């Protein structure tokens, strides 16, 4: 984030709230603003945890006695489950709260909910919220109320960020491609509404990827997206050509027929990843997708199940990456 127009701000919301005064990670809210060393440290730590998942006893005691609250203001069984598994493998006590159906329905504000959970001695919040920036509000509130010992992990906020997904994508790329420097990475589809795309773009630029392409129709690209350091391609073939990595994004049902796109069929014809299109990429290119996939909308089944797809390894790496994030936040 560029500096604000005034240097006078005393408001903590104008400093990077993820890092403490020593530059250490206290919350994981966004990849935007995190230095390369922290990203690399998380990825390195994750590779140590990957081996834990292969053991007979899949547990390490790093978070023993700690309480991790999964606070999901927006439904997501999959992401919540992976966080739950990661926390349990670190021996934490995990409490799942589906806030969409409880407190907020009774009119409790977001910060009231947080205060209540802090009073229950939460050590870490894993937060998903439909509003961009909600985890920042929580982190800021914890700071103001003197609870810097409680950590926040953003599990997806509106269109803004999904940093653990971004990190697991980086882990996957590094696993298959080793080095970021010469990579061409295409991110294809609904970038406008995608927190995954934003996190991937920030992570890739921080890690020094050679070229990042944002591929999609103008209706699905954010204004001034090129200012985030990407090359914009409205043509899928041009966008895929000679790529090392193709990240496909999910197209939400409600966006398929309306003023953004005429139909799912036309979208597939123009932007669906088929074997023919993928053949334009480098022969060893990998295909990623954050899931859940819409087969026949953004991706052809033949590609999704094909040899270049690494979509299931992404899920496995995701647990190791979330273990790494939680263990680093807890001070290990």
């Amino acid at each position, binding site marked *: 984030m560029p500096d604000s127009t005034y240097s006078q701000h005393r408001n903590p919301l104008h400093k990077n709230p993820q890092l403490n005064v020593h530059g250490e990670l206290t919350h994981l809210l966004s990849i935007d603003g995190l230095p390369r060393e922290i990203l690399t440290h998380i990825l390195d730590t994750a590779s140590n945890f990957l081996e834990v998942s292969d053991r007979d006893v899949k547990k390490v005691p790093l978070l023993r006695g700690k309480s991790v609250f999964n606070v999901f203001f927006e439904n997501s069984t999959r992401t919540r489950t992976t966080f739950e598994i990661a926390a349990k493998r670190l021996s934490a006590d995990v409490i799942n709260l589906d806030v969409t159906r409880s407190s907020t329905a009774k009119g409790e504000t977001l910060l009231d909910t947080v205060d209540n959970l802090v009073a229950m001695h939460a050590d870490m919040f894993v937060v998903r919220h439909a509003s961009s920036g909600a985890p920042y509000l929580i982190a800021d509130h914890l700071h103001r109320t003197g609870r810097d010992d409680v950590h926040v992990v953003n599990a997806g906020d509106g269109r803004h960020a999904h940093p653990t997904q971004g990190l697991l994508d980086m882990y996957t790329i590094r696993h298959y491609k080793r080095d970021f420097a010469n990579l061409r990475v295409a991110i294809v589809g609904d970038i406008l509404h995608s927190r995954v795309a934003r996190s991937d773009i920030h992570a890739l630029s921080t890690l020094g990827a050679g070229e990042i392409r944002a591929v999609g129709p103008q209706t699905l690209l954010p204004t*001034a997206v090129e200012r985030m350091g990407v090359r914009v391609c409205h043509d899928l073939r041009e966008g895929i050509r000679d790529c090392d990595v193709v990240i496909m994004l999910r197209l939400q049902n409600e966006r398929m027929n309306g003023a953004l796109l005429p139909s799912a069929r036309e979208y597939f014809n123009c932007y669906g990843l088929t074997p023919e299109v993928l053949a334009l990429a480098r022969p060893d290119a990998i295909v990623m997708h954050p899931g859940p996939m819409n087969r026949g909308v953004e991706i052809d089944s033949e590609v999704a199940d094909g040899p270049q797809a690494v979509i299931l390894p992404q899920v496995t790496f995701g647990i190791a990456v979330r273990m790494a994030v939680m263990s680093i936040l807890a001070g290990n």
Partner: protein
Amino acid sequence: MESTKTTKTTETMGKMAQQNIHIRNGRLIDPKSSTDAQRDLFIVDGHIAAIGEAPAGFVAGRTIDASGLIVCPGLVDLSTRLAGIEPELAAAVAGGVTALACPPDTNPPLDEPGLVERLVRRSATLGLAQVYPIGALTRQLAGEKLAEMHSLTRAGCIAFSQAKHPIVDSQVLLRAMQYAANFNYTIRLQPQDHNLARDGVAHDGEVASRLGLTGIPVCAETVAIATALQLARATGVRLHLARLSSAAGVALVREARRSGLAVTCDVAIHHLHLSEMDIGYFDSHARFDPPLRSGSDRDALRAAAAEGLAAVCSDHTPVDADGKQLPFAEAQPGATALELLLPLTLKWAAEDKIPLLSALARITCDPAAILGINAGAITQGSPADICLFDPVEPWQVTPQALRSEGKNTPFIGYEMAGRVRTTLVSGRVVFDSTGVKTE
């Protein structure tokens, strides 16, 4: 209602109201008459009796020493939202504001003469800043049926607007303008195309894209301005465009004025100082309607104010903590600003090297002319609505320092230069910072 005011004033103020006042040794800046000179003021019966030399037989009941201070007309604010009437009017005079226009998006909206009369009466009994209500252009501000503009004018409305509510149906807007033109009423529109701005919470640009906030494109403003200008040409209505936010919007208004259309406009003081960058990490204090736009837009707004194309207003909107302690997109837009209007105008003038005479015109005689009211000038025989301020006195913006019930502003923590010392309304001292301090 005038009689009510006088009676109450006499009751509460006793002999004070009758006191002759001599304001001496001040630097008088009256933009309307292009005066910037050392001049004494002599107030008799609540009116300016003389400027410079005492009138014959003048005996001062009270002398105010204005050495080192600037004496200027009480500020005129084009848009002040009154949450609680009394605290906000007290905040107004503490900020040197002696006349203000109140937009109709109150609860309930100002679409009934009775509501307007009550507002005028309640504010008049306080004897603080003078309140000029702006009536609802359409009933319930719903943008469908015209409000009773004639009755509302008789009740005290000086213009009509939709505040932030849209008129989606352009035919209704055309009819509203025709009807208003019929009586020579002024229509104020906050130009923003409802559909283009839908769900938007921030300027559609780099920052909103990065933060994943839904953007309001500049074309939402330009399309609405273009529509309003065309309809104003067609109907001959007197049009004021409120809260411009973009360089492109300013350019359209400038062009329309060059072509002879008597359209006026204003910008909010925040938009002269802040840009989208001030959202930082989702700071809801930087949420405004219209949104803070890019740095170059801000520069264009500053230029428009500097050249006199746009007046400057506080767009004072008290929002409580509950309204701001929410994720950015859910937070209420707006900020408290009555007490910051003057120091922020001085800050702008200092930064852009604008003569005080011009800068103060934007918050005194210019808005008075737009509102069509007898205020914002120091002339012999006019009511003594006067602001005395120290142009350099530093102070820090803190919730405690603000009299408004709205404590939310992006300028919290800032050092300001320039502070109101004394405010007079109709020759009565309604605010005196030295007095407040000793309480």
